[in-house]
């Protein structure tokens, strides 16, 4: 018999029933809820007079709309405020645990889930947010859903799904100095494209992925969706297990031992077959910078802005031309010559303690360049913020001229007051460089935390490898 992939195992363990048409009813262990994609789902429940299937499977927080500055006066924008208050009310009415804006544990939903041990290996994890793929870093099946599916999970604890195909992306070799998980995943997206994983569940594997910390693995899985894959995942190993030990929602005592034993099997069998395989060599990966308006429009920092005239495919060429116009860049421009206006270190991709440490190491004892109008660090959660302050990272950033903010999604998608003004150019540790993503007319370049920090000091992109 052929072996099973990690995805096969996770899927099979959660099938409630096989439907005649090839779909399955799949059981969901953990549902994470935030304010933007849930109000219409709760409204739907109310209109149909439905109850929650399993209250304890839900955990909510407010992250997209929250201010990252002084919160003592609440949210100024009345539309944002109503959305956050609606979540508070819904959680209260249905008895869902919520880390509200004033809770010390509040933060980005994809940071707090693992931090609390609320997402665990072997689980199915969903949330009305495409970056739910983050939680796959621990051998979980985690993916983003729409609001109709949020309602479906609230009411039934299940989803009707068709199984995706299996894809494996292997990265092999020792991680070169100055290269981070962000560079690895951007290089993967550059290689396979933003639709390279469409219709597939992607397992990231290989010696390079195994070398990554748990935080780094979250960064990789977080961006699976930018390669088109709803779910990204990584096999469980000792690092995974160690990470969860003692976390508030993780099992303890005898249950812990039982769980750890079960988690050992959360890896693809050696003889498992994948529908699609891609392999990258870590040695070839350099610090990455995106130049365009899609995460696949990425080059190494020592490269130049590419020339659309060299693109054979006419649709791709037009896309490149449109991106260059929007980004106000000329083909052949060295990436290191691109001057910046703002720096954003944060988002569910790169706002964990490891990310802040990496950025602080680069910044320590230096000042941000004169042309940088705003450089901000937005920790992923209240607990990350506290930890960073304990380590004195806040002071390092503040002394360098950065702003040290309160946790939330912030300028990754600019639903709160943090945004780019028209024409501003930003080095951002977030996940999407789409037109207008960080503010209408704003121009985003995706990079790692160390690269963003180095760019803040220089005022333009620099190769972090040269700082060592």
């Amino acid at each position, binding site marked *: 018999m052929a072996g099973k992939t990690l995805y096969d195992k996770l899927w099979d363990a959660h099938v409630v029933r096989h439907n005649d048409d090839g779909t399955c009813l799949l059981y969901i262990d953990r549902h994470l809820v935030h304010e933007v994609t849930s109000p219409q789902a709760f409204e739907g429940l109310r209109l149909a007079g439905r109850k929650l299937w399993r209250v304890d499977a839900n955990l909510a927080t407010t992250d997209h709309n929250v201010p990252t500055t002084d919160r003592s006066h609440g949210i100024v924008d009345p539309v944002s405020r109503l959305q956050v208050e609606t979540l508070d009310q819904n959680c209260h009415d249905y008895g869902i645990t919520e880390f509200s804006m004033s809770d010390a544990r509040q933060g980005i939903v994809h940071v707090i889930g693992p931090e609390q041990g609320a997402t665990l290996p072997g689980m199915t994890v969903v949330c009305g947010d495409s970056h739910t793929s983050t939680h796959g870093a621990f051998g979980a099946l985690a993916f983003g859903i*729409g*609001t109709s599916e949020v309602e479906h999970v609230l009411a039934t604890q299940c989803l*009707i799904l068709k199984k995706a195909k299996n894809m494996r992306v292997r990265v092999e070799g020792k991680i070169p100095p100055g290269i981070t998980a962000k560079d690895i995943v951007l290089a993967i997206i550059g290689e396979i494209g933003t639709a390279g994983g469409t219709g597939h569940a992607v397992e990231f594997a290989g010696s390079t992925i195994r070398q990554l910390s748990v935080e780094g693995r979250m960064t990789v899985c977080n961006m699976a969706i930018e390669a*088109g894959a709803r779910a990204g995942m990584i096999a469980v190993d000792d690092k995974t297990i160690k990470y969860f030990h003692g976390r508030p929602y993780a099992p303890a005592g005898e249950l812990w031992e039982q769980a750890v034993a079960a988690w050992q099997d959360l890896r693809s069998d050696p003889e498992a077959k994948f529908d699609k395989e891609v392999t990258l060599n870590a040695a070839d990966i350099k610090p990455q910078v995106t130049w365009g308006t899609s995460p696949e429009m990425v080059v190494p920092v020592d490269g130049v802005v590419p020339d659309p005239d060299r693109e054979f495919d006419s649709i791709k060429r037009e896309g490149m031309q449109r991106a260059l116009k929007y980004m106000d860049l000329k083909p052949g421009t060295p990436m290191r010559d691109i001057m910046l206006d703002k720096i954003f270190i944060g988002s569910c991709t790169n706002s964990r303690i490891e990310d802040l440490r990496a950025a602080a190491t680069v910044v320590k004892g230096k000042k941000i360049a004169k042309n940088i109008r705003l450089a901000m660090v937005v920790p992923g959660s209240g607990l990350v913020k506290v930890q960073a302050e304990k380590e004195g990272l806040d002071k390092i950033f503040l002394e360098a001229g950065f702003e040290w903010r309160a946790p939330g999604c912030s300028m990754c998608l600019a639903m709160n007051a943090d945004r780019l003004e028209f024409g501003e150019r930003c080095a951002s540790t977030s996940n999407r460089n789409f037109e207008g993503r960080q503010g209408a007319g704003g121009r985003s370049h995706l990079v790692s935390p160390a690269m963003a920090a180095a760019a803040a000091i220089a005022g333009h992109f620099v190769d972090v490898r040269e700082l060592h």
Partner: protein
Amino acid sequence: MEKFETLTGLVLPLDRANVDTDAIIAKQYLKSIKRTGFGPNLFDDWRYLDPGEPGMDHSQRRINPDFILNQPRYRGAQILLTRDNFGCGSSREHAPWALLDYGIRAVIAPSYADIFYNNSFKNGLLPIVLEREAVERLFRETEATPGYRLTVDLASQKVTTPSGMEFKFEIDAFRKHCLVNGLDDIGLTMQHVDEIKAYEGRRRKQAPWLFSE
């Protein structure tokens, strides 16, 4: 959910690949707690020359005359014709809501992003996949023919051009069934309550740490 059976409608050609959900409906409009009212803000950044915010009177804003949607010949379009990987990016269901609220009932493209594709069916918006060559041909015909309309017949899974040319498309049986009958998924799943409970019973024994109550 509104049923989808047949549709004959004006075609709006949006000739670009990788149209992301941020472009379909920009983040500032996601603050709404309703499912409706997103139509005036579909493709907001491309459609208007001035920045938009929720609560504005969008009919008073400066429109971008170069954007295809603003050209008078495409007014009232119900079918959106576009390129590969339509709907990539976020999981926001506000994207199909905005398309529907504007009046689009079907999209034709060579491929879609997974979450957008899935969300569309939940709302009665039909995302049709046609071969690249077929899409290319439809682009040429739409642009060359003012008032160009296509007929979509879900039962026979066919798109028919004004000249009578037919393009077959594939669709999952379950999704088709739900769309044709306007069925609510939750109601269907509720028919299997006993099986969900039985699964939970087994799961509690195998993995008790997953249940705190």
